[in-house]
């Protein structure tokens, strides 16, 4: 190991020690916030990604229906991410596309492309708590995680599978959120979300989300292969299956415009 690398390693070790000790010196609110910031920091620099998402809806009787969606995402420095989703199934909405600019503060900007009318419609992003395409995922469950969208409280450490997780309570800053709070299990080795419990406005447990089979991309960015959402009040569930993930595909701002929305296939 040459000197430059050694000193870089020393700096990193010192930084980690400093931040760890800082975490211990903090209040539960500050520690919760620090964990949230760290989940963003460890994933920073993903740039852009494309992926395919299969959504399997199951009602209480076990009947299934499927949605196929392709998602392109772009990391934005200093603000929320951009995403463009293209619907392939169900067939009657095939070709419909959805463009979203999420913001750390204030309303997101959202546009919908309706292929039958060749029309792009700017839509209200107020509908946070409504179900996405009849699934158990609300719109807010699928929007990108931004530190500023919540306040935090660290609760405890707890084993999760082979890992140890931070258990953190998150309180949505947006009054239009359907939740009073979420409790999130985040592993301490890689800051991956393992489980989230959603509590409705009346503070009753509404849903539980589990993320499974994480895979690492570009040697750095962890993404789950499956996400299971169970609604405890209706007995319905939705599974998200992710496939064909690719990072740094060369997408740029011009791929996330109203014009690209009209052309999306």
């Amino acid at each position, binding site marked *: 190991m040459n000197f430059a690398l050694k000193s870089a390693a020393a700096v990193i070790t010192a930084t980690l020690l400093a931040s760890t000790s800082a975490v211990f010196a903090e209040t539960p609110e500050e520690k919760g916030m620090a964990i949230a910031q760290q989940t963003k920091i460890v994933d920073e620099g993903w740039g852009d990604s494309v992926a395919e998402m299969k959504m399997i*809806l199951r*009602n209480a009787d076990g009947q299934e*229906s*499927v949605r196929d969606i392709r998602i392109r995402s772009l990391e934005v420095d200093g603000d929320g991410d951009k995403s463009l989703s293209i619907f392939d*199934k*169900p*067939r*009657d*909405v*095939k*070709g419909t596309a959805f463009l979203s600019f999420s913001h750390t503060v204030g*309303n997101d*900007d959202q546009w919908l492309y309706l292929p039958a*009318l*060749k*029309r*792009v419609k*700017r*839509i*209200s992003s*107020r*509908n946070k*708590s*409504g*179900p996405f*395409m*009849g*699934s158990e995922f609300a719109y807010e469950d699928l929007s990108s995680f931004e530190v500023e969208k919540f306040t935090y409280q660290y609760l405890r450490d707890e084993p999760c599978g082979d890992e140890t997780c931070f258990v953190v309570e998150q309180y949505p800053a947006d009054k*239009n959120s*359907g939740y009073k709070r979420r409790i999130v299990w985040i592993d301490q080795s890689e800051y991956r979300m393992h489980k989230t419990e959603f509590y409705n406005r009346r503070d009753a447990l509404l849903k539980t989300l589990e993320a499974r089979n994480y895979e690492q991309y570009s040697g750095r960015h962890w993404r789950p292969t499956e996400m299971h959402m169970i609604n405890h009040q209706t007995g319905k569930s939705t599974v998200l299956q992710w496939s064909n993930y690719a990072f740094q595909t060369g997408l*740029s701002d*011009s791929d996330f*415009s*109203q*014009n690209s929305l009209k*052309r999306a*296939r």
Partner: protein
Amino acid sequence: MAHVAWQQAAPKRTLLAAALVASCVSLPTAAETYTAISGNFAVEGRFFSEDAPYVGQSSDNVTSLSFAPELYIEWGDGVHSLTLSPFLRVDSVDAARTHNDLRELLYLYAGNSVEFRAGVGEVFWGVTEFQNPVDVINQSDTVEDLFGNAKLGQPMLAMTFLPEWGVVDVMVLPGFRERSYPGVAGRLRAGLPVDVNAATYESDDEDAHVDYALRWSQTLGDFDVGVHAFSGTNRNPTLLPVSDGGAPTALAPFYAQMEQVGVDVQATLGAWLWKAEWVNREQQDERFGLAQAGVEYSFYGLADGLFDLGVLVELGWDERGVDATDNLLQNDLGAGLRFAFNDEASSEMLLGVIEDQDTGGRSAQLEASRRLGDSWRVSLDARWIDASDATDPLSALDGDDHVQLTLERFF
């Protein structure tokens, strides 16, 4: 008859489109192309509550089939694409509604800062719901939809520039499409049928007149803004009575030249959508304004999350007032309720009412639909019309209340 006129015109138009496409495309090799086929079949039944009011009209209920496939080919890593979308309808009653159209045969070059389109295509401009005064590029296929939601393919050469300060569309529109009208036997027409073969034009170039359009659009925070200019043939004709010396026997479309500038703007403020379209048009030595403006508010998660409800109100305005015989919504108040059920069948229902503030004429419309399984959709549409003032063009449809049931299969 309309379908005969179309069949005669079709080879010319298809050749033009093919020439436009061929002139600018280097054809792809099979290895690097992506091809997708999609579309839908539909069967439709239309049931009228009263017998046909006019001579020649059939009182029979209508059965109708339509087919709308789309072929999409992409190459060069998505930079080049070609879209082909023909449309075909067969109608049990109205020969003019049995028609076909080339909705799209469009080559697209999509660069990073510029796009180029050539062929036959469809363009939508506007933000409002009940009508779109700024939406002037494509002709309406009115036998498909009375209120202009179905369009005929328009030959076009279009450049789109994408500078920092917005989107600039420059369009050259060679060739004009005549509006479709119900035939003699068809319902939802005026007392006299429209003879599309008797169409006349202000321009000596008739349907070969070359039109031009320019539009700038941009998103500025919560505002989406568009400004346009158009010079060419007005897609919306004036209908003039024709006769053989005696009483009029038919109506003939007269297509005037027009020049217009217009603005469309939508403000998206929380759950409120404020929308306005305004046009200033000069046509046959007359200059006048047209507008459509209104507001929509959405309630989310009503009845414990069962459905979302959008409430909208819009006013249509035409500076010419009741003289605007080519404009159904010259001083009309429209209101609508949009129900979106949060179920896995994506059930939805739209209820709209329009009242003419000059004549008192009213119409109401219900559109409800839901998905069946993965690939089917069933729709129920109903329209009720109550207009007795003879100066209101809507009064011609007073006896045409109907219910329509549609089953679509998507692939």
